[in-house]
């Protein structure tokens, strides 16, 4: 008797990359004797088992092979080598809402999606009541074309369908991160319930909180291979410490690098901070009089961090090179939330009213010590160098958005709600008679 719900053995996926379209034709005509493509292994020799009632998390950077693995698991891609053997019914949330037709009503879409997934009308009909109840959508909406749905409603309906398909193996990806928070919670409760009923769950995600909360075991996927495996907490921490460094220089061991200013004095610049600027996701602008070369968020020991708790004291380090002599200079930063709203921004001049002067060739190190009074969530960090004009138009020397991110983790004890933390206290009194002035 096989106790595994899903078993992967030596799973590999190779893509052929052709420089020109006709190269494939040449290969075909020569029946493969002339090889014109480059091989790209998106996944290499991946093997693992998932037992019934177990939840396994797979984390990794973009490009590590997560989506290829997801597609192989949901059988929408064919493996080049290796096998996937599953016991029973596999449902993949990758497919969430794929078969939905905007012109059809909610109910009609339940049936057509069901058929796309290979279920008969009779089977879906038996599940219809459960699907409708789970979705919490009113009858009126269910009989309207789904094009009139909000994206939240859309996800509700799609998830409700998938939730009721009685899966033995459930494959979940980021799909759940849409929709309102209450429904998300309901979905996760549901996953928990499925798990205790013996359903095997594979969670492929970026969302470290979810991984920590639901997984029994976590694997880190790196360059198409499973590099690490262990308990969720260890793996998430390891993942954060690996972070972006491994993506570009898998063998890089050194954590800092020196740039000479003059013979006797050297500025120590952590290489991770250089990476952050180099790989910054957002726009960069400025007149180029100052070149920001490094930026990173650190804990009290000076090691780079990507996560913090509300209230933690962290440091933002900025390294810059002065390209031209400047008489009016300061440095600043901004934290923006997921809607790209700036939640906090500040520069040095605001703090000490000092206008800096710098000479060409200087290497500058700026450190902001910040009390992270932000609410739980993901924030991006912008760093900049400009003149000290805080109102109206100022001269920007260098401005880099999205050079690093900070995730404020779920608090151990929730002390507030909203975006801003305001210092507050609280008194309470009691009496039996009221008087109104």
């Amino acid at each position, binding site marked *: 008797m096989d106790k595994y719900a899903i078993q992967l053995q030596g799973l590999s996926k190779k893509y052929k990359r052709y420089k020109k*379209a006709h190269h494939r034709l040449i290969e075909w005509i020569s029946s493969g004797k002339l090889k014109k493509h480059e091989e790209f292994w998106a996944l290499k020799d991946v093997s693992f088992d998932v037992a019934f009632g177990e939840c396994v998390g797979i984390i990794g950077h973009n490009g590590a092979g997560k989506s290829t693995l997801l597609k192989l698991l949901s059988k929408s*891609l064919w493996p080049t080598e290796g096998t996937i053997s599953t016991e029973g019914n596999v449902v993949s949330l990758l497919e969430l809402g794929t078969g939905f037709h905007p012109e059809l009503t909610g109910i009609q879409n339940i049936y057509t999606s069901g058929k796309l*997934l290979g279920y008969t009308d009779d089977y879906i009909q038996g599940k219809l009541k459960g699907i409708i109840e789970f979705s919490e959508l009113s009858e009126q909406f269910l009989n309207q074309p789904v094009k009139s749905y909000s994206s939240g409603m859309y996800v509700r309906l799609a998830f409700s369908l998938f939730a009721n398909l009685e899966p033995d193996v459930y494959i979940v990806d980021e799909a759940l991160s849409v929709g309102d928070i209450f429904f998300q919670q309901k979905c996760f409760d549901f996953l928990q319930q499925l798990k205790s009923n013996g359903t095997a769950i594979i969670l492929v995600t970026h969302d470290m909180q979810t991984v920590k909360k639901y997984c029994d075991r976590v694997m880190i996927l790196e360059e198409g291979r499973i590099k690490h495996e262990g308990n969720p907490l260890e793996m998430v921490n390891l993942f954060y410490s690996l972070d972006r460094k491994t993506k570009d220089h898998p063998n890089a061991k050194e954590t800092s690098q020196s740039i000479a200013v003059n013979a006797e004095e050297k500025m120590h610049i952590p290489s991770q901070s250089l990476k952050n600027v180099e790989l910054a996701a957002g726009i960069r602008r400025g007149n180029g009089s100052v070149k920001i070369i490094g930026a990173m968020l650190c804990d009290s020991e000076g090691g780079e961090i990507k996560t913090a708790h509300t209230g933690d004291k962290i440091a933002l380090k900025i390294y810059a090179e002065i390209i031209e002599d400047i008489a009016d200079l300061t440095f600043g930063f901004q934290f923006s939330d997921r809607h790209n709203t700036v939640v906090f921004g500040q520069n040095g001049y605001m703090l000490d009213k000092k206008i800096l002067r710098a000479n060409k060739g200087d290497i500058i190190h700026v450190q902001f010590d910040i009390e992270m009074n932000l609410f739980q969530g993901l924030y991006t960090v912008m760093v900049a160098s400009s003149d000290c004009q805080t109102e109206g138009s100022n001269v920007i020397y260098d401005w880099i958005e999205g050079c690093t991110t900070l995730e404020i983790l779920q608090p151990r004890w929730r002390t507030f709600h909203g975006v801003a933390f305001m210092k507050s206290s609280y008194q309470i009194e009691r009496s039996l008679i009221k008087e109104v002035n």
Partner: protein
Amino acid sequence: MDIWKYRSYIWNNAISDLKNRYAGSSLGAYWNILQPLLQILLFTFVFSQVMVAKIPGMDSSTVAFAIYLSAGFVPWISFAEFLNRGSNAFVENATYLKKLAIPEYVFVLQIAATTTISLFISMALLSTFVLMLGFTIGVYWLILPIVLLLFMLFGLGLVFIFASINVFFRDVSQLLQSIVQIWMWLTPIVYIEDFLPASFAQIIKYNPLYYFVNSFHQIVVYSSHPKTMDWLVMISVSLLSLIVGYVVFKNLRPEIRDVI
């Protein structure tokens, strides 16, 4: 078997395809009947009233040529549509193929079902029309569905070849549209074989579609049955096309979802 699992998807989509094809027009699904009907009426009017054409040996009626035309052209429309739409079957359904486990061939079979249904509707109309014009529908008409199915099976093999290659070279479906046009003129659909120059009459014998269309003419126009040669060619080319289609599809299949 997967085909069995997805049978209701294939069937339901073929039906809704027919319904939605004319969605938005007030007559809706009725256009599936009206379209071929108007085609047949137009032929009849033009060739019996405007350009009176007669078939050698059938001087009895001026509508005979209209029936001759319809007998070849009506199935041809379905065949051409099958090839053109079928060759895009995988590319058009890329969103599904990228995310779902649904087998690729389901989409080809769905188009095959749609075009076959509309072919049979058109031929049923043609038969009523032939009756109304005072022609007799003989016992040989019973053979017609078999010939039509062979015709579509021949097309199915080709569609598998073109649809598979089209995933890798999108020009195929464009090229195919022109090929289909040329192919029509290489088949005695809008002309009568006897009027051809001898050399050209020889050439069209190498066209497999000649034998199918010949069989339609035999049954519908001449109230006869296809000759042994016709049967032999029709059965063998259908088999050959299906085998080649299967081999091409089978070899390209593992990569289809990688590039789509």
